[in-house]
């Protein structure tokens, strides 16, 4: 299969070319956030506090890596289940993120928001934590370090493999997957 090379930050022009089912290799910066970081962002936003990092234009990776061994950049770092972050989709897209990387289905609301904000949802390869860690070239915690593996990390990745799971036209790979067998 053909792999499409893309770089972050993702422009709307690039997002428009991405179609559900495309295999992509991402190079550039990602920010990590999972359950607790999303909850913290929501609490801070509700309290009118300024976030310690900028979300505008960012691609968010739902991951809680294993600790890096001494001398290593990061441990295993595969995607976690995205649907747990569905309640935060509206807030995050409103704050300016351009896309999300995780695994598994999204709710209907998130799908509509992806279309509305010209964003994209990628699935990476769940359970391929060792494989994916090799594509991460640097990692540092930039916020919420008390959350340990759930802290917000800034990652630089090279040829990080993902599949376009929901494109900006609202097409969803998980619906196609099952339908083609019916």
């Amino acid at each position: 299969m053909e792999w499409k090379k893309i770089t972050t930050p993702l422009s709307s022009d690039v997002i428009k070319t991405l179609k559900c089912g495309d295999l992509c290799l991402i190079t550039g910066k990602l920010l990590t956030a999972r359950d607790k970081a999303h909850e913290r962002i929501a609490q801070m936003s509700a309290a009118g506090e300024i976030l310690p990092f900028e979300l505008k234009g960012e691609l968010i990776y739902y991951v809680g890596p294993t600790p890096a061994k001494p001398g290593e950049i990061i441990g295993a770092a595969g995607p976690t289940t995205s649907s747990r972050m569905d309640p935060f989709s509206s807030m995050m897209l409103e704050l300016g993120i351009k896309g999300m990387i995780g695994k598994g289905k999204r709710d209907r609301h998130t799908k509509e928001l992806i279309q509305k904000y010209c964003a994209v949802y990628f699935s990476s390869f769940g359970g391929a934590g060792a494989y994916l860690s090799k594509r991460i070239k640097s990692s540092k915690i930039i916020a919420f370090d008390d959350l340990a593996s759930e802290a917000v990390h800034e990652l630089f990745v090279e040829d990080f493999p993902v599949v376009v799971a929901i494109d900006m036209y609202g097409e969803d790979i998980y619906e196609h997957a099952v339908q083609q067998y019916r």
Partner: protein
Amino acid sequence: MKRTIHTDEIRKAISELIYNANFITPPEIKNIFTEMRSRETLPLAAETLNILIENIKIAEEEKIPLCQDCGSVIIFLELGQEIEITGEYLYDAVNSAVAEAYSKFYLRKSIVADPLRRKNTGTNTPAFIHTDIVPGKTLTIDVMLKGGGSENMSALRMFRPTDSVEKIIDFIEETVTAAGPNPCPPIFLGIGIGGTADAAMLNAKKALLKNPGDHNPDPFYRDLEIRILERVNNTGIGPMGFGGNNSAAGVYIKEAPAHIASLPVALNLNCHSFRKGRRIL
């Protein structure tokens, strides 16, 4: 004459089992992956299986955990009643072995002390320990690492005793289809049939302790396992839910006697990263 086992020996065994489960995939599971890859016809599904096979290789060679979710540690003990445990309290020994292993091997600590207040214990303990007393002088230790994504897709339904087997298979297909990509397919599916509600759930997990290539010894349940595997693979969910022929890598049933009014069916889904091991002391 009782046989004595010191808890230091148990700690050592548990530590080794945790290490192996996180980094090393046994040949029988590698073979299942090779077979699935050879059967897969859709290009994206084949590519996905290639990545999962490569992941197994990298984890083993470079000592990186197979998955960042190093799981809840589920421990099954079959304790021979002619054994006397010496040393410390058995469950303390188990938990300190788990804590030490998760720190020493740089594994992710994913356990919170309280389900609602959610403070991480920082040690990946407590482990979830199930003990059965059995005849004899041996202690069998099974360690299973269970990721949150697949555990969250567990299901239980109390059927009528007069419901057909077909209805049970429909429920299984519905559950696996609804779970779709979330449990990281191709899944290893544990099914507990019979018993009480709690026994069925536990049996669904115990069913997964079988040798991955083995079937239920009872031909009736063996055939049912094969039928269910076919049905699940015909859903088209495929590896990681991207579509394909391989949605399940194995189906394992553990049945139990039940009340005349009851027919519980419990499902425990395990991701493709089937991390477990056994040691007999």
